[in-house]
């Protein structure tokens, strides 16, 4: 796939001086900062947590690898996301991603949300360099570090897959599904 981070990029090296080109290399600054206060806060106190009673769209997201599961309900008023809520069992990355996603897209148009879905996915998989290329992600760039953690990319993306699925009224989505149009390449994890 050619996108797998090299050993060097992932900060692996030997003690021995003979291997000094590999030692003390650290390009994991972003992932080191992954568990920063904003993510921990959204994990502790998720926003828009629950389910909408009269949802116009809903979808279930599931990551079979770690058992992450979330259900998303939303109300579309024309093209505008009038209300959105999620609930489920997941790791902190997934829960914070869902919480921040709902807070961000609430009140936005469906088309703007789809743009964010694409940009978030590209950032998480390393296709979008959030520091150099234009985007609309704002504070969502706190998740950029997952690109160095191939097994955790799915955790961050799951809520966004689920939102995409909900727009298209797909009953349930999975980050494992090969035919999922939002299926993200995750290196060789």
């Amino acid at each position, binding site marked *: 796939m050619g996108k797998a981070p090299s050993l060097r990029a992932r*900060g*692996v*090296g030997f*003690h021995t001086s003979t291997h000094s080109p590999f030692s003390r290399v650290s390009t994991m600054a972003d992932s080191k900062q992954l568990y920063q206060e904003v993510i921990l806060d959204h994990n502790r106190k998720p926003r828009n947590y629950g389910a909408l009673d009269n949802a116009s769209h809903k979808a279930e997201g599931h990551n079979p690898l770690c058992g992450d599961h979330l259900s998303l309900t939303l109300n579309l008023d024309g093209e505008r996301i009038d209300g959105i809520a999620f609930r489920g069992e997941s*790791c902190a*990355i997934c829960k914070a991603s869902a919480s921040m996603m709902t807070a961000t897209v609430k009140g936005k148009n469906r088309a703007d949300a789809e743009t964010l879905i694409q940009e978030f996915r590209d950032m998480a998989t390393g296709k979008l360099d959030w520091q150099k290329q234009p985007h609309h992600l704002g504070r969502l760039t706190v998740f950029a570090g997952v690109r160095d953690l191939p097994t955790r990319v799915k955790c961050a993306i799951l809520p966004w897959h689920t939102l995409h699925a909900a727009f298209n009224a797909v009953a349930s989505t999975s980050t494992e599904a090969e035919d999922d149009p939002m299926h993200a390449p995750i290196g060789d994890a």
Partner: protein
Amino acid sequence: MTAIPTALKSRRAAAFDVERIRADFPILKLRIDGKPLVYLDNAASSQMPQPVIDRLVRYQTTQHANIHRAVHTLSETATSEYEEARRKLARFINAREECEVIFTSGTTESINLVMHGYGRKFIGTGDEIILTTLEHHSNIVPWQMLAEEKGAKIRVAPINDAGELLVDEYEKLFNERTKFVGVMHVSNALGTINPIKHMIAFAHARGVPVLIDGAQAAPHMHVDVQDLDCDFYAFSGHKLCGPTGIGILFGKAAALERMQPFKGGGDMILSVTFEKTTYNTIPHKFEAGTPPIAAAIGLGAAVDYLSAIGMDKIAAHELDLLNYATEQVNRMPGVRIIGTAEKKAAVLSFQVEGVHPHDVGTLLNQDGVAVRTGHHCAQPVMQRFGIPATSRASFAFYNTLAEVDALIAGIRNVQKIFG
């Protein structure tokens, strides 16, 4: 800092020089993002010592050709080295005869071989197969496939809250339709050591053959298939300081003789015409095609290495590590050990209150500590405990008490971050 029990340390130091052993493992010198690697994922795959790496290099450099085929020198050398590896493995598990040792790609293929070779021939409609809640998916799914194909039924022996098999419930599952038992020796998810000798004897008294999934036992304790009297015993090379892509199926010669071949191809035949094929003798009947010759020879070197240290010493050191880690974790508020069987191998599955195992795993990795997180390919075990996943530290003989301290410090750090 936690106090290392120095009495314990010095007592073992005389018998077991872990630092000398560590010097044999080049990968243990790695740093992960600047931190010394603390490798505690040995139940998933163990690391390879230099003598095994050297053996692979020597084979590829000076001995490689295809086996059991040509008359030239290299082919004869490769054949004799491959068969010598089989002898080493037979000795390692005390098989009665070398022909009872079949090279496979790993435990999974070994179990699939028995399912196809034995199950499809001798298990039919209405027959019952007994498994346990503890099983790895590799000892569940093949039997489900067989049950679906044949209209057979799977019965499952349950466990208690400590993760111990309920032996009396196991015994109650037997009836006249019981045709096969599959049970793991040591649980990969919880570390439980099952009372397989008793379970085998109980099944045999009712004429039922038993397959033991020994993937987590063979690397950590002395296995004697004659003493156990099991019909089949499966394990993998890569959990045993050997290469990936190689594993073993031990089968009693009489059982192997009765079985049908698993894969068809070269090397597993005596003669082929379009009218009729005559199969080779065991073990070759089950080794179709060119096997992973280098990996088999590497595994032979791995069991030499382990035997030179001594499986009993390995087991004793690992038990020290497990006991020390268990003691430390039990003192930590907010950390729960999953799997508290009285008899355990060096597996410590745990949950940190309020923190998903994948977050635990990612944060421990930032401290250089490699653990497994997830369902450990044992979802029925997770369902039994009502949890989606655990974090699992699994120890090998090259791990140290200081590495246990690094794990404990890492868990404290996780609690601080999520506090």
